[in-house]
């Protein structure tokens, strides 16, 4: 109702957003690999209040994952090399989705493969599932048919996998970009041109830690993905640069744990944000951010959180 004052507006009026034609109750989502298949969080947070859940990365077939050790804490963050262990797309739609779709949070399966065909196969399986809002493509996996470098490393390969998925998907496709590239703007432009409906960024930054007593890497996989507050400035910079390069909406990810963190991303150009590693050490962080966002809108006279997106001031 247009004659409502901002104080009278409900959190939903203030926070609802639309991305790629999908309406989300609010711009706070949980990030892939940091909330299981969503259901595991239900005992701790109200899934009806969350904007969306990005599931653990799903492949066409189940994957066993890496040997331990898989995680190690670093300063202000953690390294992980889980190895994309997952139950497979088919088990997800049979066992998890029917329970998950009972909640208001939109369901966004995160999808990966080691070849373009594997991405297509996983999407085809997920197309059978009901109650899926869209897909998020993790393109940070090695492309085994093209020398084993990650799809994300080469804008051409990133575009190729995006276009291939776009052709078989009836649902919006969000492409998740990696910070481990020379130019995030070039990656963003390439996947936008290939038909991506939105971008999410960033995935983890590749890192490594060494045990000085044994002189061994602290992770069995040697290297791992760095996440948590330590990567936030890199992520804000990536969102800012991508937002200036493309017209499609951007979803910000990287070290978000508080309302201030979320606001930084939104001001830098993100239409929505995902809470990742914070779910591990502060499982209710997403709920606190949702409460804080509505308060911020009221305090700053915003009729909708959308008014804040990309309002970063660069004037002197």
């Amino acid at each position: 109702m247009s004659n409502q004052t901002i104080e009278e507006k409900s959190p939903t009026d203030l926070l609802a957003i639309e991305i790629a034609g999908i309406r989300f109750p609010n711009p706070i989502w949980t990030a892939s690999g940091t909330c299981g298949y969503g259901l595991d969080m239900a005992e701790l947070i109200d899934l009806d209040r969350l904007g969306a859940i990005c599931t653990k990365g799903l492949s066409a077939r189940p994957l066993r994952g890496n040997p331990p050790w898989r995680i190690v804490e670093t300063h202000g963050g953690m390294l992980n090399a889980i190895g994309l262990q997952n139950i497979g797309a088919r088990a997800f739609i049979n066992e998890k989705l029917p329970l998950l779709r009972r909640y208001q949070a939109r369901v966004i399966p995160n999808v990966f493969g080691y070849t373009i065909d594997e991405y297509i196969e996983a999407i085809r399986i997920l197309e059978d599932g009901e109650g899926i809002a869209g897909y998020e493509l993790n393109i940070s996996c090695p492309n085994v048919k093209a020398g084993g470098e990650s799809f994300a490393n080469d804008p051409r390969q990133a575009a190729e996998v995006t276009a291939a998925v776009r052709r078989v998907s009836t649902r919006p496709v969000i492409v998740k970009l990696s910070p481990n590239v020379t130019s995030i703007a070039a990656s963003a432009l390439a996947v936008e041109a290939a038909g991506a409906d939105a971008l999410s960024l960033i995935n983890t930054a590749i890192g490594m830690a060494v045990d000085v007593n044994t002189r061994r890497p602290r992770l069995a996989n040697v290297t791992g993905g760095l996440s948590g507050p330590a990567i936030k400035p890199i992520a804000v910079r990536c969102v800012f640069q991508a937002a200036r390069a493309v017209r499609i909406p951007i979803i910000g990810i990287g070290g978000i744990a508080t309302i201030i963190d979320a606001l930084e991303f939104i001001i830098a150009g993100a239409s929505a944000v995902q809470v990742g590693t914070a779910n591990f050490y502060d499982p209710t962080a997403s709920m606190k951010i949702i409460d804080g966002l509505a308060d911020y809108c009221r305090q700053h006279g915003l009729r909708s959180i959308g008014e804040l997106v990309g309002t970063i001031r660069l004037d002197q």
Partner: protein
Amino acid sequence: MIDTIARVEENELTESASRRRYGRLRLRIKVPIAVQPGQFAMIRPHAGEEPLLRRAMAFHRADRQGDHLLAEFIYQIVGRGTEALARLRINDEVDLLGPLGNTFDLGETAGTEALLVAGGAGSPALHMLAGQLNARAIPTRFFIGGASSGDLCALADFIELLGAERVTTATIDGSRGVTGFVTAPLEAAIARLERPAVIYACGPDPMLHRVARIAAESNLPAQLSLEAPMACGFGICVGCAVPVRHDCPEGFIYQKVCTDGPVFRSETLAW
């Protein structure tokens, strides 16, 4: 499982002759959560972000006091997270997520004897179990090993619960009990068993491997409480993988220590 802020009632630090340091942390939780033997909590100081991730600690005690719970943890100080716990003062706040994990299965103890085996800071995970076995009048013996007498965590609590005659100690430096590893007196006791027995163990991996072998050789069931690096403690990060036997070409799959465990039957493990 709840996520709450608990308050420190006591945090007593000790150091053993082997220079290892330990803390005994008593927390008041303002929710009367029900804790089962073998379960754990993820804890860290509430103030600040050091460490970022909470650390897994077994409930040593969990006593109801009206609508509160008094919980006790015993921790060995081994790194950043436990150093941060050691700095906690009375009345400080602690983030606590719990209770987490499965519990020891007492189903197979009827008519048997329980042999509890702890290495170093593994004993807290067995203390509530000892209490429950005692309450059910199941004959229980406790074996604990460590580098030196000061490393036999919570020894006095087990003696109080079971009586000194049911507690066997082993130390590497010979400062208390048998000299050497705890698995030696365990094997000797198994050789003299008069009825079937069930083994329950918690401690460093090498000790658990040895216990698993002894259990297999003597045809006794063993339940082992495992440790793994954990980011979340409630099943969402998949960081705490342990290989478990499975009917597939590779012969195993990874399960989660936090939600499938921490207690596993030794014969199911593929390590």
